[in-house]
Each structure stands twice: as structure tokens, then as C-alpha cells.
């Protein structure tokens, strides 16, 4: 029985190539935003402004979860089923 991953793995290499690039670009964007959030949260916490740290953490966690579930769409390429 075929599912989404099977269909994706059989897709044309051009398609998986584009998908992979898009995935990586979005992950890099997420990480960039998280670096900014960590910097801002830390800077404000050290400057006795503690209200920023918690929202920054929540936003960072949401971005991580997005990135984590994003990996489901990672093309796995052709699986080697043949055993020597």
C-alpha cells in the first residue's frame, strides 16, 4: 500500500531537490529567528527586564516544533531494499 512518503520518494529528483532546498532555507530562517530571540531574551534579562524571557522562550519552542515536524517532509531518497 502506498502512502505519502512512498509517493514522495518516487518523485522526480528535480522535485525532491527543490523540496530539500526549501526545507533547509526555512530551517535556517527558524534558527536565525531563534538566535535573535535568545539574544533579546538574555539581553533583557540581564538588564533587569524579565518580562521578555518567557515570551521569547515560547516563541523559540514553537519555532523548534515547527522545524521538528517539518522534518517529516524530508525526502528520504531511494531506499535500498536489496540485500547482498
Amino acid at each position, binding site marked *: 500500500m502506498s502512502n505519502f512518503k512512498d509517493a514522495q520518494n518516487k518523485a522526480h529528483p528535480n522535485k525532491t531537490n527543490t523540496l530539500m532546498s526549501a526545507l533547509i532555507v526555512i*530551517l535556517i530562517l*527558524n534558527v536565525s529567528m*531563534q538566535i535573535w530571540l535568545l539574544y533579546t531574551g538574555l539581553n533583557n534579562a*540581564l538588564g533587569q527586564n524579565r518580562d521578555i*524571557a518567557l515570551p521569547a522562550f515560547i516563541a523559540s519552542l514553537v519555532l523548534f516544533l515547527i*522545524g521538528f515536524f517539518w522534518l517529516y517532509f524530508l*525526502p528520504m531518497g531511494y531506499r535500498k531494499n536489496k540485500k547482498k
Partner: protein
Amino acid sequence: MSDQTEKEPNWKQDFPIERTQSTKVSRRDFARFLCLVSGGLAAGSAYVAVKANFFPPEEVKGEHFVCKAMEVPLGGTRSFVVEGSNIPYILIRLEDGNWRAYEQKCTHLSCAVYYKPGSGQIVCPCHEGFFDAMTGEVLAGPPPRPLPALEVLLNGDDVYVKAASPGHNKNITLKT
């Protein structure tokens, strides 16, 4: 065991990883690594949030004697440490007679700052950070925050410091 394995030298059986496999990072692995970094950053933010909300830094309690006023000339400074803490502070007697006390650690990368006599500026020599000696505010350079200040009190000829009043970042102007 297959015939091929028998032909391979022993070291290949012990370390059956090809050179390309050990040196090449696929885009798939890179995406997974980015996700790992993302998790690390989220954990870092969690640490900052917990530390800021549940373990705030302790403030200086009570008044602490630093030195006699006559020991510090106009434009002069004196380093001191408050009892029960190892944070270095710097006491400054400005040219106009005002007293100021700041943490001696630059808010950029914790280098020791010093007062430049006659300029009204506190300087961090590491990366050319400049602070206003009157207020502790950043004038130039990479420091992201003002220098944490203490309030200076004069009791006769004795100089005392205490924690800056809440909502009052700047020291009270006291003239001798």
C-alpha cells in the same frame, strides 16, 4: 559470511566505513543538524527564562562602607568589592564633585572598565566601549546595556554604597 568479506583485510572489517561516507555531509543530515541546533537554542531560551524568573540575581543589601572621601581625589577612582560578593565595583569622584559607583564589568564581554579623568566617560579598552560617567548609559561601542549602578551615600567623610533605588537607575547627586 560471504566471499567478499573474506577477501577484505581485517582493518576493513573492523572499520567498515567508506571514506566518502565519513567525510560527506548530505543535505538530509544537514537539515537534521539544523533541527538539533534549533532544539539547543530553544533549550537555551528556556534556561534564560527560568533563571530570570525564578533565580534573579541577588541585590546588594544594606549600606557598605567603601573608603574615606579624602582618599579619592577629584577625577580619581577606587575599586572595591561589596562584602559577601565577588563582583568588582568602581567608585568615581567626578571633577564636578559628584560621586558615582558602577559595576566594573563591561556589559559587552565583562572586561574591566576604567574612568578616563577629565572626559566624563568610562571606557572599556577591549572593544572601545564608552559609557557616560554621570548616568552609566552607553555612549558608543558594542556594549548593549548601561553599567549597573550603586547609589553612593556620604556620611560625613565616609563614603557608603547601597543598592540603587527601584525605578531610579541613576545615582543621587551628592556634592561634598
